[in-house]
Structures are given as structure tokens and as C-alpha cells.
């Protein structure tokens, strides 16, 4: 397996493009359906949600065909992973996740308010 091979890189670019397109289309669908719920599910702010809702298909396709992923990783701190390391049942883990996710997005605003 030659990881640096041109064929593989092409495959990767295509895979990223596919995921980007699927992601963008889903994100737009959510944003159009219900902005507040989309903000919760996607973890994006109000402005970005509005922007997503108003993008044209051409813009989405253009954006999607880049060779980096458009969505970023949301589980970027330790407790989030720890939740899944434990032997709890899935619905409890999901419950724990949603509590952490919802509160996390509120945190920056809380500190803003204090400053």
C-alpha cells in the first residue's frame, strides 16, 4: 500500500468532496427547516445558520469540491471521549453527550457576559 500514490490521493480528495457535499446539503436542509434546531445539531451560530440556509446550489457544490473537510471535529476535549469509554448503555451515553454538547456551546457566551 503506497499512501503517497497519486491514485490514493485522488480517492481521498473525492471522498472529502463527497462528504463535504453531503454535509453541506444536510446542513442547509436543517437550517432551512428550523434554524434553532439546526444551530443545536450543527453547533453553529445564528449568522452561519442563516448563511447556510441562503446558499445557492452552485455555491454549495463549489465549496464542497475542496480538498479539506468543511466540517470540523466537535469532540475536542477529554470528558467527551471519557463518556464513551465507560461501559454504560448507549442511550445513557447519548444522554450524557447531549448534556455536555449543549452546555459547551453556552460556555463562551457565559464568559462573554462576565467580561
Amino acid at each position, binding site marked *: 500500500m503506497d499512501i503517497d500514490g497519486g491514485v490514493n490521493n485522488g480517492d481521498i480528495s473525492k471522498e472529502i468532496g463527497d462528504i463535504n457535499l453531503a454535509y453541506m446539503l444536510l446542513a442547509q436542509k436543517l437550517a432551512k427547516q428550523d434554524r434553532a*434546531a439546526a444551530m443545536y445539531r450543527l453547533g453553529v451560530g*445564528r449568522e452561519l445558520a442563516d448563511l447556510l440556509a441562503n446558499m445557492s446550489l452552485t455555491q454549495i457544490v463549489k465549496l464542497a469540491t475542496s480538498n479539506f473537510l468543511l466540517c470540523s471535529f466537535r469532540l475536542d476535549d477529554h470528558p467527551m471521549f471519557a*463518556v464513551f469509554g465507560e461501559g454504560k448503555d448507549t442511550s*445513557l451515553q*447519548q*444522554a*450524557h453527550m447531549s448534556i455536555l454538547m*449543549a452546555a459547551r456551546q453556552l460556555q463562551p*457566551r457565559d464568559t462573554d457576559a462576565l467580561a
Partner: protein
Amino acid sequence: MTTKSVLGEVRQVQLAVELIELGARLQFLEAEVGLSRERLIRLYKELKGVSPPKGLLPFSTDWYMTWLANIHSSMFYNMYRFMLHEANEPGLQAMIKAYRLYTEQIEAHGGEIVLDFTRAYTMVRFFDSDMLQLSPCSRCGGHFVAHAHDHKHDYVCVLCRPPSRAGKARGTKRGDEPVKASSMPATPILAVHSALGGNGVH
């Protein structure tokens, strides 16, 4: 609220339908929807096929502290807070949207809706009147529903440190009563109650 315009009244009816479908009680509808009590009762009967239940709304904050109820309540309240502060939804819409997300997530895993709409609404009222608060867990950092002014220094949440017998009643390891367990949704909570009682001894 008197709604003179036809459109305004249609919106109130839509809101009432939405709330009734979520399981709102008559007391709540009367407070939040600008329609007469008679119309609300008729609407309720048409949608549900039965008269709205009578009786008092739940009034104890203790319910929200039992193991499973605390998990579900914390889930809902975090979503509600998000809808209110992040998405800037007005109070009632924040309630509706958060409750939808909550039921959706529970149902996706085939779980049982422990927190009904009335309990959710009552909880929001308890928070507003400063009887409940969110306490940060010292382990996972998540915010969980707790009694107000109950400042435990190193509070650990019910998910990071579940009570020893939490959820065991659900598993029905003893094969003699599986039917009973599935037909009685209140069983796990009661079991956890007694487990919590037992923990307090040592």
C-alpha cells in the same frame, strides 16, 4: 389576549394543536394560548378523543432529583437553555423546540419518555422561581439539574457516579417478571429511589 384578526386566531389554534400534541395540560394551554377555555377543551377532545385530565400540576422539585428523572431533566434543560440563549428563541418556542429535540433523541434509541411536557414546563417554572439550578459536575463539566442553593463543593453528576443499583430494575435479570417490568414504566425510578435510600446509611 383577544385576537381580532382571523389570521391571529388561526395561529393561536395552530399553537394549541402543537401543544396538545406534545402533551400539554389544560392549565398550561390556558396560560399560553389566547383562546377561550371552552374552545381549548373542544380542541383537546377533537385531537385526543378524551376530555383533558383534571387535577393539579406536579409541584415537587424532588421528582427531578431521582436518577433517571435527573438525567432526562438535565438533558431537556440544557437543550432549553440552548434554545433560549444561543438560538434566541422566545420562551414558549424554546420550550417546544427543546422538547421536540428531547423526545426525538430518546425515541431514536427506543427509550421511554420519562419527562413529560407538563414536568418539563413545571421544571422551567421552578428554575424561573429560583427553586432549581444547574450544577456543574466536577468530573465531566456537564450541567445537571439540582436544588437551588445546594452548593456542593465537588459535585459529581448522576452519570459520572450512578447510584449502585441505578437502572438494574430495567435489565430484568430474574426471568420471572419480564412482562411486569415492561408494563410498569415507573419501576426503575422506584427501584432507584430505594437504592438511593440504601446508600445514605453508611
